[in-house]
């Protein structure tokens, strides 16, 4: 009998120490929203509430496995590949992998090509309170900046403590405190930004598109375009040059906010990131001007 080999997706949860990875994973574990047959591989058990999770799920197919940092050349049997090997033939259908705080997503991603798996998305948490300071750190500044650059989806944590925090990047960004944050993270696919679906049984999936205009648009036109967006668009975020100056656009669900950008214009990276739950809808947005 031949068995179809189904590859299991791995979602990487990265970000520097203190960015809120553990809090986020604990919320996932305790939200009840974690699909069954999900294995959670944590960098070290640390503060993960393993027992609570096992009691809650009551299911043997959900597993939380602790990993220690390791390099194959220094430990022969590194924890990660051993865990992946064990899970390969299990009933597990997907893996959430917490990266070490010093991991670069693109290096961690390499590991997700382990036979039987594929990298689903690199999610990176960014701490609104300390990120800017940390980017200047002489030891980890480069690393922290690289983590953000290599992310498919950025999750901002602790924004309540620093409401003015704004990450100047044209990457899909959500807030850890958003009601649907878990849903977005779990449904995120790394090649979603190519506007096509990926072969996965995961629902819902999210798709993203970046829109940039070289010429200023009129504010009225921009408002109209935002209003006309299809219902599957969950978020729009970014900065747009208009006839009324640079405008910051923030839209979650149907709640749209347009605010004049008061900071120096040279720090502004212009463009909008649009996140939708239906790829077709995203493809139908034709904003070419």
């Amino acid at each position, binding site marked *: 009998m031949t068995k179809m080999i189904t590859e299991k997706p791995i979602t990487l949860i990265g970000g520097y120490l203190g960015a809120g990875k553990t809090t986020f994973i604990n919320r996932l574990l305790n939200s009840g929203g974690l699909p069954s047959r999900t294995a959670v591989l944590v960098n070290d058990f640390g503060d993960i509430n393993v027992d609570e999770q096992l009691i809650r799920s009551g299911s043997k197919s959900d597993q939380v496995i602790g990993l220690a940092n390791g390099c194959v*050349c220094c430990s*022969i049997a*590194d924890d990660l*590949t051993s865990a992946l090997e064990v899970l390969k033939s299990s009933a597990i259908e997907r893996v959430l992998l917490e990266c070490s705080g*010093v991991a670069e997503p693109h290096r961690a991603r*390499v590991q997700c090509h382990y036979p039987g798996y594929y990298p689903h998305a690199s999610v990176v948490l960014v701490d609104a309170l300390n990120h800017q300071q940390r980017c200047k750190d002489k030891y980890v500044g480069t690393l922290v900046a690289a983590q953000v650059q290599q992310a498919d989806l950025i999750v901002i944590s602790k924004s309540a403590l620093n409401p003015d925090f704004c990450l100047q990047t044209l990457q899909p960004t959500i807030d850890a405190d958003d009601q649907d944050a878990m849903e977005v993270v779990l449904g995120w696919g790394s090649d979603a930004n190519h506007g096509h679906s990926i072969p996965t049984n995961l629902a819902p999936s999210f798709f993203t598109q970046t829109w940039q205009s070289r010429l200023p648009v009129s504010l009225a036109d921009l408002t109209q375009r935002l209003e006309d967006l299809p219902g599957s668009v969950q978020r729009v975020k970014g900065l747009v040059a208009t006839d009324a100056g640079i405008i910051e656009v923030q839209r979650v669900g149907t709640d749209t906010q347009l605010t004049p950008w008061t900071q120096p214009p040279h720090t502004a990276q212009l463009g909008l990131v649009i996140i939708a739950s239906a790829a077709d809808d995203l493809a139908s947005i034709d904003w070419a001007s």
Partner: protein
Amino acid sequence: MLTLYKARSVITMNESMPRATAVLVRDGMIVEVGEPEHMEPWLRHQEYVVEDQFVEKVICPGFIDPHLHPSMAAVLLPMEFITAMRWKLPWGEVEPVTDAEGFDRRMGALSTKKSVDEPLFIWGYHQLWHGPMSRARIEDIAGDKPTVVWHRSFHELYMNAAAMDMVGVVAAEIKPGMQIDIERGWFFEGGLGYAINRLNPWILAPDKYAAGLQRLKQVVHHGGHTTIGDLATGMFNFSAEAEALSQHLEGDDVPFRTRLVAHGTVLTKGGVPPQQGPELAEALLQRNSHRLHFGRHIKLFSDGAFFSQLAQLQEPGYIDGHHGEWLTTPEILEQHIRSYWHAGYQIHVHVTGDLGLQLTLDILQKMQEEKPRFNHGFTLEHFGFSTPEQIRQIQALGAQVSANVYYLHELSDSYTQNGIGYERASQMARLGSCFRAGINTTVHSDFTMAPAEPLNSMWVAVNRINHVGDVMGATEAITPQQALQAITLNAAHVIGMADITGSIRAGKRADFTVLDEDPLTCDPLDLRNINIYATVFEGKVFPLA
């Protein structure tokens, strides 16, 4: 019963009496050093024998390698070596193989030597010397004998079809992007883990591992060591390793002792708070036996592997702009160091690049401000890249240096071309500066990163000649006297055993390395060719063929 050792010369490494010709030993302990007539008062009323087989030889303090990895070595040593550099192994010297034809010739010879179904594991391949490797190339030579060719860095390997069948590589599972090139039989990075998981039944099989440890025992003896440091005990698994070590590295036939330094990250694995580390480390002392000793030492890690160019560098970094990596999150490293610092431990930190070193020194500075300590023995392990300014900091903070000086020999030329440029490559292992600053400095092999031959380390430290024959950073060379001190007394200080070994004086254990030539007066270029005649461990002679 006393034993009187006579020699052409005894190099004591005791500054107060640098040379002698006789050593008197009772029950494994030195009771008198000097000229034969100085022994008289002891001999008047006690029985003694004269050990005169060394009268034409030179007795040195027993050599010490303060940083190697018996467990890693046990995995590697059962393999066959085909290397671009010379490796002197007890079962034969591995002559350098520096071209593709030579590699294939030797692979062919090894292949015919093995019985039909015995797999062939080769270690030491490097594309710079041996040309592109592939499954087809292996098959041209070794046919369908299962053959695995492991890269010198250990980070990639090649297998022929027979080896892939043997270990159960499923071609259908392998897809593009997995860092496995099934056509070439090439497994690297993420793909290497896949291969290793399947190779483990062969390379970690208990009988293989035991055979590997037996070979390690021979290697250590052959290098002239009477003491070594296992600088990451527990890297695979604490209890399995401790058990295997006590089975193979303890007993009357073992000619050396081992300082065991626990792998700090593994010790507190599983979410144990760093504050509990010292308590767990303390419990390891229960396992101590005569030759195997945990002490109040701990091993921690700063930046990435030197051989993989993952050392963290200060500006201007690597020529190609890539960055190194941290093995431990800097804040977590600080938590670990704090915990052991306050508990009074001697801390050994793996540092390879000058940024990794700077982080470690900044943490040490903080510790000194929190709780000043003297004679704390904080040791910087490997010490690849450094700056002259950091030498002053190391001195001011009271730290010591244990360097892998072999980096300079094997890598300074290629790192000049493809890495960091000439200036910094020529100043790897800045040992001359360390000695001038009065820093206690030793050298190690990190075996299997470098040959476990203290005389070879001494040769590199004194001559600073790289593998293409260029002298690199001549002012950082050290004298033969300093180099011999590095591999004896200074090494003993680094592993906390200077009270019992490292020099030849009354009161210390009778640990000697007996040489045919005098390493302090011979041509420095001949240092690595000096024949080791025998070692003496605690008064017992272990001859070397």
